[in-house]
């Protein structure tokens, strides 16, 4: 699975409440994305384009179980690369089908606006501006399959556990 896109750069300890503020979590699903990062980057949700990639620092996605990964998918984010991603946010990425790669040290080598290429299957990310390539933490096959095939809702609908509906 190859993803190429323009980078939005965020720092260390970016939390789920910044991605999906409390005023957004109980709004109708379609209205939630515009609040993303409104506290730390006002106006960002209007600037982000389909296929863009977020590069975070350490501990990207710390915090709550709220569906912040889904909000970023709704905004068109195609993948997340961060120096480290805590378990809860990583699980939400896997289960919503958001490609997410942990790659220690990559953050420092990227500028906002760079175009990067991620080979998720090989857990490798390349900065096309500098040509520099990094190997991230290898994503186990079982998780890679779930992450790259749209997550758990489709799986559960296929297997007859859920009434079919749009993933939420």
């Amino acid at each position, binding site marked *: 699975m190859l993803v190429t896109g323009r980078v939005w750069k965020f720092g260390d300890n970016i939390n789920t409440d910044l991605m999906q503020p409390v005023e957004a979590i109980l709004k109708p699903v379609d209205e939630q994305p515009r609040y993303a990062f409104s506290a730390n980057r006002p106006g960002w949700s209007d600037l982000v384009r389909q296929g863009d990639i977020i590069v975070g620092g350490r501990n990207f996605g710390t915090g709550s*179980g709220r569906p912040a990964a889904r909000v970023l998918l709704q905004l068109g984010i195609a993948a997340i690369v961060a120096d480290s991603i805590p378990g809860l946010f990583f699980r939400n990425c896997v289960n919503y089908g958001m490609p997410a790669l942990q790659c220690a040290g990559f953050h420092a080598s990227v500028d906002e606006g760079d175009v990067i290429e991620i080979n998720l299957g090989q857990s490798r990310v390349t900065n096309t501006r500098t040509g520099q390539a990094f190997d991230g933490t290898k994503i186990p096959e079982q998780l890679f399959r779930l992450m790259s095939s749209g997550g758990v809702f489709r799986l559960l609908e296929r297997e007859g556990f859920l009434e079919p509906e749009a993933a939420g």
Partner: protein
Amino acid sequence: MAMTMVEKILARAAGRTAVKPGEIVNVAVDTTVLIDLNFYHGYWHEFKKIADSERVVVIFDHIVPPKDLQSAEALKRGRNFIKRFGIDRVHDVGPRMGISHQLIADEAYALPGSVLACIDSHTCSAGAFNCLARGMGNPEMVFITAKGTTWFWVAETIQYRLEGTLSPEVSAKDIFLRIANEYGDHANYNVEFVGSAIAQLSLNARRTLATMCSEISVEFVVFEADSKVVEHVRARTARPFEPQFADAGARYANIRTIDLAAIEPMVAWPDSVVRNSRPVGEARGVSIDQAFIGSCANGTLDDLAVAAQILKDRKVASTVTLIVTPGSQAIYAEAVKRGYVETLVAAGAVVTSSTCGACAGLHMGVLAAGERCITASTRNFRGRMGSPEAEIFMGSPATVAASAIRGEIADPRQFIGGRG
């Protein structure tokens, strides 16, 4: 192969003789806790079938009683689910109401040596009972409810050895803030707490420490099941359980010793607890508009007791709103019986019914722009308790109570113990 506590619990749940860091293990989930949020629009998925109603617990906690139509509809959806699938272990609005992690502890849903799943990030709270518990997010809770299984990516473990004696005016919250300040985030690491000082910590104090580990992004946190834990659980459930202890020679990424005698009251500055706390003296004089004691971390009877002790025959400053939210209605009732509620109300506190409430910025204590709060709850992210332009400092219930009296962040040792 010698294993850590976490590895042994995972191995048991996976039906394997051993697991090691880096592996994916597929496990049966022993206890599945659904809360009101699972039944909200945007979260809820209609099930055709579920794995096992005997393993499911339903607890309404985040917005109870319902504050609006949307909340009311979510609870109704939850009640339909409970009825349709015949769920017995239920905590609806009423006398059995409470914050899920408090009830998971008090009702012994957290069985030593078992695996427990819930949507909420503070589910790691149950680690105080040697239970491998964590927040999962909504899609995964739907998956686990349907299939009864999940996967874990086995992480390395950091062991904390707690030694020495804690001063009476210092609490588990201060221990946590000290660890978070010194060692930063623990993303992709498990944490085990052991050591001679654990025995002196109440189950409530251990749970505060375990709950707060969510704030440093641990994968799992577990304590050993000592006699206190085993007696607590045996007195409350007939379900079988098998505590797990680390093997001699288990491999740790790091072993760190914390001397509890050296810890003083700590305060976290707004937005994060990661490397962001200092001794309370350095925050002295910071004025506050709101003070909050509650949540799954600090709504215990111990927390209400220390607040009442400090506030007895004193008054909350006229410029401060003090909100106290017991962790469960059972705790509330006991606090009434012991006179804590009378003391708190006489001092000027607002004591609310049990819910996540102000901690999650959802209702009963939301902050406006420009307001400053000191909280004994779980989380101080920007915007967590309301406006992103509000500031959230964090301290122990004692520090919060002392600050409420002074109208500014204050050292609880002025009111109890130590220096007079």
